[in-house]
């Protein structure tokens, strides 16, 4: 095996290993996010939503579907990927990965692909669940899938960074809980940012999650808070930034090798 060739068996081994972890804990991995999302639909869609007026002709129940999927996609991608790399660090089994003839980008690709696969599957399950609660049609299915995959990939990369950075279980939780969840809630999961006063609308534009939710919502309903090209552009910028940080991590051995 020369340095030029890729280590496909390793990518496959890591990917399947990570996916096996999902099937081992189906309740935690699949069922619990589905249940919590269903609760959102019952509370915000059916109970409260029935008393809210439609937004741009879309019922409130349907309006929140893209936001809810994004919310789960963000938190699950981060959780999946951060845990996948943090846990071997915690138990010490990471020695094997570090001593294997695996390029850093091969390892990242396998871990992130597995984490993203899980969250895309989850997003699709939530979408299917949503059809049970609200009438829904998807205007641009291709763009919907593209945003789903791009967001899952980007936040799995972000989760990977958190997993490498964290040196305790607390740190593993801090970023998702204190930064990502608030950003997702304030990023228009449950409302259109046009509903905000002008000052807060401007503040909100600094929230990267706004662009993800906006783009995703556009793929469903054909209208959005910000332009689709801007949404896509911002998503790709964040993706590139995560890849750059990970490249640096492996180049320096930051928190992986001493």
């Amino acid at each position, binding site marked *: *095996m*020369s*340095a030029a*060739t890729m*280590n*496909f*068996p*390793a990518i*496959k*081994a*890591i990917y399947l*290993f990570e996916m*096996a*972890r999902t099937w*081992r804990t189906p309740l935690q991995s699949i069922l619990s996010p589905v249940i919590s999302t269903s609760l959102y639909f019952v509370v915000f869609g059916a109970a409260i939503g029935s008393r809210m007026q439609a937004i741009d002709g879309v019922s409130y129940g349907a309006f929140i579907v893209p936001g809810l999927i994004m919310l789960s996609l963000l938190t699950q991608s981060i959780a999946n990927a951060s845990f996948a790399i943090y846990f071997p660090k915690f*138990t*010490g*089994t990471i*020695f*094997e*990965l*570090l*001593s*294997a*003839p*695996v*390029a850093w980008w091969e390892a990242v690709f396998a871990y992130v692909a597995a984490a993203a696969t899980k969250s895309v599957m989850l997003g699709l399950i939530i979408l299917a669940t949503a059809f049970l609660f609200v009438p829904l049609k998807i205007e641009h299915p291709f763009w919907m899938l593209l945003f789903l995959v791009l967001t899952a990939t980007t936040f799995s990369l972000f989760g990977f960074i958190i997993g490498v950075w964290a040196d305790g279980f607390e740190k593993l939780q801090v970023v998702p809980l204190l930064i990502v969840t608030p950003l997702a809630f304030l990023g228009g999961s449950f409302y259109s940012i046009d509903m905000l006063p002008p000052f807060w609308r401007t503040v909100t534009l600094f929230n990267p999650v706004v662009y993800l939710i906006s783009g995703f919502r556009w793929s469903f309903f054909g209208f959005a808070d910000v332009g689709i090209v801007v949404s896509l552009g911002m998503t790709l910028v964040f993706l590139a930034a995560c890849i750059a940080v990970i490249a640096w991590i492996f180049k320096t*051995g930051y928190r992986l*090798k*001493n």
Partner: protein
Amino acid sequence: MQPIIQISDLSKTYASGFQALKSVTLEIRRGEIFALLGPNGAGKTTLISIVCGIVNPSTGRVLADGHDIIADYRAARSRIGLVPQELTTDAFETVWATVSFSRGLFGKPKNPAHVEQVLRDLSLWDKRDNKIMTLSGGMKRRVLIAKALAHEPQILFLDEPTAGVDVELRQDMWKLVRRLRDSGVTIILTTHYIEEAEEMADRIGVISKGEIILVEDKAELMRKLGQKQLTLHLQAPLAAVPEALAAHGLALQAEGEELVYTYDTKAERTGITALLKDLGEAGIRFSDLRTSQSSLEDIFVGLLRANA
């Protein structure tokens, strides 16, 4: 023949400022069992970790089977298997899954027959469907060895393979290591048990405070070990060894009160009978005698003291 591992001028200073390795140069011969002996904290694990790619070296170079471990890491690492000191295993995986995973990780295509053979060799075949967390400590160590052998490495590092292992498993481990060596695998083991190095190794290296202070064939060390000294305490001190006894190669010590005779216990004749006869004829009388043997432990302790 080209050495299978060439370590040249390897140093490691950790971020804390601790210098774990000081310009280590070492060659491991193809097909040998090399024991790296040293007290805790001497740098054994750091040395292994650098060769295996887990720790970045500060300076120096390592070639594994002619491949630079950094520039050509794929070729280097695919030849190396590592059994770490700590029992770091997954918990929820089955034995079969974790060993198969290791094979894939090291770039080898699936080969259930090889994995089965490894598991059988390590008496793990019956446990193949057990989750690792249900296994005993000794079994977990076997699992780690199986993982390291899954990709058919040419070089196997065993970091303290028998630390905290019961006698039976230790014997099994030694048998396994010999079998591997017979199949052409080069083995480097670290230990702080001298008897382990004595039992297993072809060559022994001693490391202390980050420096290799001795590398020698075990046979050569054992030859030194095989020498005994007979010390005779004389009734009357001598100024010099008498001419009549010159052939025996004696030495005087303790201001002429003791005569020391060095002999080889493994030789056909020790020469003791002849010496005693000659002493009687020369009229030299002695009040006491004792014999002593330097052990590998003595050599080791002496080296460490000299290095302190």
